[in-house]
């Protein structure tokens, strides 16, 4: 115990962060998380999540514990049970699904108005996923439809991604890691 405390104080040990991954069903949340894990732990069969699963992965400076929430309609109301003590939110959007972007916006608005989120400075990372598809919308367009400019009290970032190849994930995550670290540090002080 003593050693690990000392190590973390010296910055030798990685800080831990709890994040929550949300978004509509079939947007690619589980696939993104799967891609972030080391190669030997990745799975090949991704099935729709029921409820949630816990995944762990690391970046250079942080150790993430991610709650991968199910995006299916009947489970969305369960997201809020995990808002309270998360240090960051990853919101995944299917950038080809123009029709349901409105649904995604509704869910996002609900999330932002939640009592555990509203008054906290909590970083949100948006992935406009499935950028490889031909009719995918650009990240700029997605952010316009979702009305992201209106989020003023929280740091946010959107980037296009392809979970199958991993393209765009590192970019988004390095921004996210920096923000999360800042939040955790400010909390400690």
């Amino acid at each position: 115990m003593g050693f690990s405390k000392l190590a973390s104080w010296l910055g030798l040990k990685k800080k831990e962060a709890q994040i929550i991954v949300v978004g509509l069903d079939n947007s690619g949340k589980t696939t993104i998380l799967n891609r972030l894990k080391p190669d030997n732990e990745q799975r090949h069969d991704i099935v729709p999540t029921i409820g949630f699963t816990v995944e762990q992965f690391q970046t250079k400076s942080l150790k993430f514990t991610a709650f991968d929430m199910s995006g299916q309609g009947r489970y969305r109301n369960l997201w809020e049970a995990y808002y309270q003590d998360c240090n960051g939110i990853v919101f995944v959007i299917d950038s080809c699904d123009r029709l349901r972007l409105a649904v995604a916006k509704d869910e996002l608005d609900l999330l932002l108005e939640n009592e555990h989120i509203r008054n906290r400075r909590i970083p949100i990372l948006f992935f406009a996923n499935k950028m490889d598809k031909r009719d995918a919308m650009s990240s700029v367009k997605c952010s316009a439809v979702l009305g992201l400019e209106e989020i003023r009290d929280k740091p946010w970032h959107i980037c296009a991604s392809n979970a199958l190849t991993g393209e765009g994930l590192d970019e988004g995550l390095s921004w996210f890691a920096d923000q999360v670290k800042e939040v955790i540090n400010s909390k400690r002080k």
Partner: protein
Amino acid sequence: MMKRDKKEDDNGGLNPFSYLEKTSVLQEGRRFNETPINPRTCCHILTKILYLLNQGEHIGTTEATETFFAMTKLFQSKDVTLRRLVYLGIKEMANIAEDVIIVTSSLTKDMTGKEDQFRGPAIRALCRITDTTMLQSIERYMKQAIVDKVHAVSSAALTSSLHLARQSPDVVKRWVNEAQEAVNSDNIMVQYHALGLLFHIRKNDKLAVTKLVSKFSRHSLKSPYAYCLLIRIACKLLEEEGAGSDSPMFEFLESCLRHKSEMVIYEAAHAIVNMKHTTAKELAPAVSVLQLFCSSPKPTLRFAAVRTLNKVSMKHPAAVTACNLDLENMITDVNRSIATLAITTLLKTGSESSVDRLMKQISSFMSEISDEFKIVVVQAIRSLCLKFPRKHSVMMNFLSSMLRDEGGFEYKKAIVDTIIGIIEENQEAKEAGLAHLCEFIEDCEHTVLATRILHLLGREGPRTPQPNKYIRFIYNRVILENAAVRAAAVSALAKFGAHCEDLLPSIVVLLQRSELDTDDEVRDRATFYLNILRQKQKALNSAYILNGLQVSIVGLERALHQYTLEPSETPFDLKTVPLAVQPTQEMKTAAVAGEIAAPKATEKIAASRQDIYAEQLSRVPELANVGPLFKSSNLPIELTESETEYNVRCVKHTFPHHIVFQYDCINTLNDQVLENVTVQMESADGFEVVRYIPAPKLPYDQPGTCYTLVSLPDDPTAVTGTFSCTLKFLVKDCDPNTGETDEEGYEDEYVLEDVEIVVADHVQRVMKPNFGASWEEVGAENELEDTYALSSMKTLEEAVKNVIQFMGMQPCERSDKVPEGKSSHTLYLGGVYRGGHDVLVRSKLALTENGVTMQITVRSTDSSAAEVIARAVG
């Protein structure tokens, strides 16, 4: 460390969880949300929560859901102990918390993961939270898990499938191939569980089960547990088929007696001795195996053997006699449970001469055995008393000394039951038995037993040669006991006053003292009885003190409720309330012969059966104005052969001026739907069909009910008749798969067997606890007397049985039991005739050279009722 030890000493090794408080524990549950997780603390908190849940603490849905969601956060921990506690927590909360489905993916991840420690528990937890709709999504994983090479995982999946089969049998049925593969596993538990699942999937298909047994009985299973299960399945099959020892199944059972595992040998022996139709020859090898076990050095085997022999000795005492020598040796066994069972077995198989010796042996260690086994001893004594009535004095003394010993309620109840049983069977034992019971209630802590004994004293005491000696015991209760016992004592006293005139003045004095009792019930009873006793009228005494209320309690409640809903000018009439149904003699004998626990349930059902019918009939609007239900016939009469196209069963309901025939019909053709189903009835005896109430629709295999309302003839003595019945209906063909019916149908009919109305349908059995008093109460006004020669009867027992059956009345004063070796007997019957008229019959039977001669005297409050009953036999 020292400090902690001392603290534990102070607590005297108390349960550390015994002072837990629900709210504070649930509050602690919030610590699951903390990051990073502290596994030690969380384990401790989870244990507390599990402890509370297992203690039966009620946790509300909101609280439970909150704790459950906090618990789900623990999935991020990799601590094995903590995670396994989480699985337990999920299982316990599965039915209390909401949205438990949220952990589905986490659990599927764990059950397919690398950590074997997680996989089994995850499967069990997953199957608890999964319902039929969700089962599809985990089906693939379950199939994989069943055939998994890790034994613990495979076993967990198999047992969980068994649980799932209860709610979603169709899905589990599809896993039969996997189960089949798992049976071939080389692990004994997996094999056992797989066989269990396989049987469960096929248990409704008799042919498949037969195949299953014959297949596995041939190529040998490795697991002794699986063998035991196979024996049980085979046994069930044998019983259903009623097959004898020539069946291959029985050969299999016998071959198991030579198995190398003791467990299997015992199971096979147990199965053989418990089969319904076994002959002595078939029994012999099984008993000799048990005999071998009797001298085994392992106490478990000795216990199992002697326990089984004890059971067998009830049915086949002769077969067990061979083991008597071994049993004698076991009397001195260091294990008292084994010794007790050995002695009780010997008591059942032994001769009258050995009883005294064995009883002495038992009493030497009675104080060392547990209540449960003392009850076994008591039951053995009971059956002994039935077998050797002459030994009752030894038994009574023994029982009374047992009554004086320490013991729990169940034990005392068994003794009291036995003493009462002996008193009822054996007149000679009555006085001694009553005396012992009197002594017992002097120091009895069980209210139920005290009231029961007081009731018995009230019934039997007044008719003993010296009734006055019981008064002191009863009055002591009035002074010393709680309200319930005081009330019972007051009732008992009143019965003495009503029956014995010379005691009346003293009883009145005693009852007057209770008029100032602090309890309402006691005071009310005392006042009520005093006022009746002061009238000094035999009829009143008989009606209100000696014979209690004879209506069905449920019926009375409903009638009073109805009366308060529709207030009318006329006062409430107790005669409109249906009478309580007396359990018939056959049921009682079954209760004595069978296990002690089982018949209680059936008696309860029988008592409320008529109330259920009354409820059903009151829901039919067409039958609203026929008046209160008087009686429903006992067992439904089958009007069709079994396995015909339609099954029809008839129940007769008697009303003041009508009879309703209830026909329960089942359509066994899956390609037909019947509509507008009625049963047409025709009779030549003056009965008139008033109305048919059809069953609107009768789909395949769903019971439907139609009614026929028949009015009784005006002549009050014309009460019997025969009806020819025809089932009439509209047939519509339908597709058995989709259930779609054709638009058009056609009329059809089906001839049923005849239905009879007999005298017994008009009479309700009523027990008159004090027949003599009731006889005087009714009086000789409508007395009829007749003499018959019953030439077809060869014995008095046969005559008694037939007379009771013809009249449908209740034998009183236990006069249905003919003492052995007598050539004459008097039978007392009590009943109530349709319309609420009391009917009493005194029938003197004498055995002559050409059959039985019967002189019958009928008294009733109604002249036509007396006439009908007097003619019933002729």
